[in-house]
């Protein structure tokens, strides 16, 4: 086992190439049939601990069950992913609290620890993945395709790793909105009076927070300064264009929010699926993207099934399934290059305008969150 631990690319001192080399060697040297009875799968850090994929599949099948949490069916195609994983391996999936939040995932791991219905695998936003890691709730696990996940998008010890993401997008009902909005600035026009919604308070919803960050980039702000984004929404509010309701398919259908700022994939899977005239555009002046993360619980009641789930998600099949749900899987660039991408699904994604500035660091995100918590209700006040 000790040889395998070195396989994790955790040290910054070692160059990536050396780490990868060591890892490959370790994989070769330990490959072989694993003894199911004597192996503690909750400590398995890669497929090698199972003696390869066949061993992992066998171990997972004998567990027979997988507990997932906070995975809505129409979010990134999770409904289909759950069904096909279940069918492929004959493993029953219990999907708990599908509409829950990242915080509730952490709570579930803590409160249900040791119980058979505790979550096995997590899908959470990065601040919560980091927090869960600090609380020692996550098990390090390195999927076979980890080389396709950029170093900046995963924990140094692979306790969490980016899975899929998307861009902040402006969606609009083309049956109501005759002149399509193209940018954050365009949304300030009087013709969009009482039209623009976001999906929740930016202190609660990751997408709304991202919308404020994107608006900041569009208005002279930066990853170090989210304030212009808050001021933008304050202006949108005083101009009378902002409709501060929890926006979604129902507020679109009722006519309350003919324009919604949200993740591009949710614009597609949640609203466009119900409103056929819904169009999605990524704003030209504020291009902001973010990824969610996968993780395996350190106290997973089904440790092998949990690890098989991760291998499945990061396989070409799993990645393409996310893509079919309009989400951009982390391996997308490599899959496009290799030609393994589902081309029809890829074509359905809204085009990204030039000017993408990359991703903020975690420190920048945390700072921005505190500013939003302090200033959102004060600056965008409704009285």
């Amino acid at each position: 086992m000790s040889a395998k631990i070195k396989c994790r690319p955790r040290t910054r001192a070692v160059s990536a190439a050396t780490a990868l080399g060591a890892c490959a060697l370790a994989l070769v040297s330990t490959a072989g049939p694993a003894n199911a009875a004597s192996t503690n799968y909750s400590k398995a850090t890669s497929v090698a601990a199972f003696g390869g994929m066949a061993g992992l599949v066998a171990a997972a099948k004998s567990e027979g069950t997988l507990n997932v949490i906070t995975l809505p069916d129409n979010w990134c195609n999770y409904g289909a992913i759950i069904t096909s994983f279940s069918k492929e391996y004959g493993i029953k999936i219990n999907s708990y609290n599908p509409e829950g939040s990242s915080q509730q995932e952490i709570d579930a791991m803590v409160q249900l620890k040791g119980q058979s219905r505790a979550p096995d695998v997590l899908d959470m936003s990065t601040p919560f993945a980091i927090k869960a890691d600090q609380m020692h709730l996550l098990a390090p696990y390195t999927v076979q395709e980890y080389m396709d996940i950029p170093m900046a998008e995963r924990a140094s010890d692979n306790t969490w790793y980016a899975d899929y993401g998307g861009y902040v997008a402006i969606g609009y009902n083309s049956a109501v909105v005759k002149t399509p909005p193209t940018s954050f600035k365009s949304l300030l026009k009087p013709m969009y009076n009482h039209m623009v919604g976001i999906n929740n308070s930016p202190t609660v919803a990751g997408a709304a927070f991202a919308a404020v960050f994107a608006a900041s980039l569009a208005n002279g702000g930066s990853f170090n300064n989210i304030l212009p984004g808050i001021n933008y929404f304050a202006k949108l509010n005083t101009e009378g264009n902002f409709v501060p309701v929890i926006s979604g398919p129902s507020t679109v259908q009722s006519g309350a929010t003919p324009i919604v700022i949200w993740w591009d994939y949710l614009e597609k899977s949640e609203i466009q699926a119900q409103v056929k005239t819904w169009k999605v555009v990524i704003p030209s002046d504020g291009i902001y993207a973010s990824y969610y993360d996968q993780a395996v619980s350190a106290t997973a009641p089904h440790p092998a099934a949990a690890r098989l789930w991760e291998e499945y998600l990061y396989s070409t099949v799993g990645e393409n399934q996310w893509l079919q749900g309009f989400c951009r899987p982390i391996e997308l660039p490599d899959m496009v290059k290799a030609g393994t991408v589902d081309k029809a699904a890829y074509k359905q994604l809204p085009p990204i305008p030039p000017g993408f500035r990359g991703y903020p660091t975690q420190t920048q995100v945390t700072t921005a969150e505190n500013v939003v918590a302090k200033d959102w209700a004060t600056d965008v006040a409704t009285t």
Partner: protein
Amino acid sequence: MLLFLGIPAAAVAVGAFEKSSGSGYTMSNVDTATSGVYLRGFENSIKLSLITAIVPAVAGTFIAYAVHTSRGSALRRAIVTASGVFANFGGIPLAFLFIASIGSSTALVNNWTRDIGLSLYPTFDLYTFAGVALVYMYFQLPLMVLVTLPAFEGLRASWHEAAENLGARSWQYWRYVGIPVLLPSLLGSSLLLFGSALSAYATADALTDGTLALTPLQIGTFLNGNVIAGAQNVGKALALGLVVIVAVVMSFYILLQRRATRWLR
């Protein structure tokens, strides 16, 4: 009581003073919770709860009285059934009902009123303090009717007749008999409304996107969010604040109740 009230309250109280790292105690959670936007959250919450307790309490009392004195049983049954339904109608469905009826220029009621030449919109904005207060009335008023009706039942017709026989005028009957009998339950009902408004969450959340600072919504951002990680104890400090507010209101209530029930002792 201990299991479902005592232990959770104690956990909140202790958590409010714990460092978020989990070891040691600090005042910083409470300091944060009582300053800036969180202080304003308390102000707004208290203001909203007072308004949406007092107005429906007064109106609900008159409605309950009207129902009590009505001759036919049809009105009574209709009001009691409707109150039972509407008092339990809340959360996002309620918010959406208002959004769809008066929330936008194309909303249902606004379409009607425009046709008859009235323009409710955009004069009245649903997504404001006043809008949220109006929506709260929708469940507060029926709740008041529901909980005060039994008190009116307790008011026997023979007392009124006896007072009249002794030469009392209507106002004298109410001053010396009716209101003293009703007051304890009316006060209790108003307190219930205050608590119900103070703790309401989903309705206001759906109508404001956090632009109206309200304490329950702010607690939600810490305990239930996808954005701010690791500040749950500030949420607990806010919850402790709500406990303190309810405790203060309860003390007032007990004092008033003692005065109101003096005639019983």
